[in-house]
């Protein structure tokens, strides 16, 4: 690996971590799309800042652009408060307008601005190592690494200092207000950090990838765990992994680094979405099927309980009586028999002691209708699940 290669991966990893941390809270607060809005609407801020400083990495530019980001949030909230349009429409109205202003500002001053809308939106990580910071003639490494490093450091410090406050205001705004922790302050604090992160990162990876880096790792981690600390760690891990593997994919295909980092993120998310234990698509579908069978089983047992007549309990009769397909009936019968709830003698089904006990409890559950009870019952009685 050459030095620029190492530096690119380092920058990518730092950006990924810096984005993942606010991203987790945005996803948990159902405000993921705010990051998209901010990433677009900082454009006029960047352009204005660039007119003043003529330096894409100047702190003033970053501050100005971050301010535009916060203004976006305030504007969106103000429109929401008027009640004229629904919440998401407010976001959709604000950021394209601000973005358009930015594009027009660039277009009108195209001659004396070395700023490209493509560059803002898509970024180019490959050039990042060549824009270096020097201090008294000494090479201090790439500028964007410094910028993102400082942003990361600040957000880490804030995270550790205000972890408890952030946690409580995210999950229960009312409780946090009652405890004297202003949810509003936390909200705007988070918004400011997100804005600063987006602005700092857009130069390196582009506005769209910032959104991906914020949302995708957090969403994937959220599918795996429900513990905030684990979720933070996991999303940081996923971010770093996609950043570095994305770089090598880009190297292989000779294509955009930020594009392939996003593609790696998409890949990771797809895997998690499909295979996450308990919350992934396959697990959910499997559980739904299991529950369908188990509900059928309970229906079946209740039916048996209600009919003492031998005719009603004959296997062939059941099929037409409850109106199940052949396969379905077979599954349910098998499950009931494996769990020792029924016994079949010369094609007549009858409940065992255990089956009777379970049916009575199930009946009680149906009458009182308390959801949490049925799962315990199933745990107690079932040797095999549906």
């Amino acid at each position, binding site marked *: 690996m050459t030095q620029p290669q190492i530096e690119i991966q380092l920058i990518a990893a730092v950006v990924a971590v810096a984005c993942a941390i606010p991203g987790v809270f945005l*996803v948990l607060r*159902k405000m*993921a*799309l705010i990051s*998209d809005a901010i990433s*677009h609407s900082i454009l006029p801020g960047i352009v204005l800042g660039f007119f003043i400083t003529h330096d894409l990495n100047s702190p003033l530019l970053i501050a100005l652009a971050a301010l535009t980001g916060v203004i976006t949030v305030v504007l969106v909230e103000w*429109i929401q408060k*008027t009640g*004229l*349009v*629904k919440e*998401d*429409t407010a*976001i*959709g*109205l604000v950021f*394209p*307008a601000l*973005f*358009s*202003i930015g*594009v*027009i500002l660039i*277009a*009108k001053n*195209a001659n004396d601005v070395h700023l490209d*809308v*493509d560059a803002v*939106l*898509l970024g180019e990580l490959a050039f990042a190592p060549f824009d270096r910071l020097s201090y008294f003639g000494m090479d201090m490494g790439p500028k964007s690494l410094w910028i993102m490093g400082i942003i990361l450091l600040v957000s880490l410090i804030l995270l550790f200092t205000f972890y408890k406050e952030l946690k409580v205001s995210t999950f229960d705004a009312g409780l946090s207000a009652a405890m004297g922790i202003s949810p509003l302050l936390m909200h705007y604090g988070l918004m400011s950090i997100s804005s600063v992160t987006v602005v700092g990162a857009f130069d390196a990876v582009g506005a*769209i*990838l910032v*959104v*991906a880096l*914020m*949302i*995708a790792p*957090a*969403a994937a981690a*959220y*599918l795996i765990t429900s513990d905030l600390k684990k979720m933070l760690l996991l999303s940081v891990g996923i971010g770093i992994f996609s950043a570095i593997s994305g770089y090598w994919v880009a190297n292989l*295909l*000779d*294509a*955009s680094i*930020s*594009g*392939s*980092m*996003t*593609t790696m*993120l*998409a890949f990771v*998310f797809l895997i998690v*979405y499909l295979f996450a234990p308990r*919350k*992934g*698509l396959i697990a*959910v*579908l499997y559980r739904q099927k299991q529950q369908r069978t188990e509900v059928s089983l309970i229906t079946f047992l209740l039916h048996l309980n209600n009919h003492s007549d031998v005719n009603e309990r004959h296997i062939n009769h059941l099929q037409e009586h409850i109106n199940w397909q052949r396969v379905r009936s077979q599954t349910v019968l098998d499950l009931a028999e494996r769990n020792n709830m029924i016994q079949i003698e010369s094609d007549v089904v009858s409940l065992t002691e255990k089956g009777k006990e379970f049916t009575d409890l199930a009946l009680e559950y149906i009458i009182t209708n308390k959801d949490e009870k049925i799962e315990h019952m199933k745990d107690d009685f079932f040797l095999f699940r549906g």
Partner: protein
Amino acid sequence: MTFREYFELLFTDYTLGTITLGTAVLGAVCGMLGSFAVLRKQSLLGDAISHAALPGIAIAFLITGTKDSNILLIGALVSGLIGTFWIRGIITKTHLKTDTALGLILSLFFGFGMLLLTFIQKQPNANQAGLDKYLFGQAATLVISDVVLMLIVTSVSLVILLLFWKEFKILLFDADYTKTLGFNTKAIDVMITFFIVLAIVIGLQTVGVVLMSAMLLAPAAAARQWTNSLSVMLFLAAIFGMFSGVFGTAISASQDNLSTGPVIVLVAAVFVLVSFVFSPGRGLLFREIRFRQNRRDLKLKKTLQLMYDIAKTHENISHPHAIMILNDFQGFTRGTLRKLEERQWIEVSQKSWMLTEKGFKEASNLFSKNPSNDSATD
């Protein structure tokens, strides 16, 4: 180029005419279909879909190697639809919320599209330039066949809209009820979504991926402020969209260095702003005016109530009282007295006032639930 030159050119210059017609039709169809997105709380779906269309364009190009916009649009349509249904899968099957699902699909598909676009650019194929016009849109590249396509999409969606008007409307406002009536809600839902995706896809070439969602939302959000009727809203949204297209094209054509897409979006934003402030029913301006009027009315009636309390202790309600005794009461000014007199609730003479018959009745009815008078209407 000045505006006058522009309008002269509009009817003589073929290209300009095509572009103007194209943006007008696009604005109209987006406004019309966008109304559904806005009312179904799917405003940002448009943003997600337009980004999700990008990889489809790139893949269509990679497979066919042509830049024929119709083929690329089919690719965009397919990948937009995949994105939409994946969003739905994430929302219904996992505990991730709508905003996360939208943000995910938007950024992940777009990133993948960028990967493909940069990959294409590095290919030794002279044909590739111009794919990035789908990023920001270039109205200038509109040709007559594009406009014809837009017209076809518009008329097909109009016909479908009229045919299934009842179904669309009932699904919008009460989905559960629709289901109990025995309509196939899933099919209607897919149909609406399909047309929204279609509208987005045909707009990509003109206004680009990033600004497409505003084309869809802004006219509908503006139209919503003026009416509570779905058909009127659709009609208004189409008109607003059309004018945004026409004005946007006019402004960008009459200035140098102005790309059409952003200008159209800003014109639409102006429509929204004006509607927010000036719409008579819901607008901020009239709301504020009504608010102040109510407050003034309330103050006036408070004074009247005080007078009533005083007058009530006398046998003759029109017994004159000194204005002085009202001084303890803070809400009263000369202006209030004059207003009360205008409404013939009191009569003022020199230094005293007296309650009239009408004023007495009004005051005694102030707290009863069905006021039997007409003065409450002003």
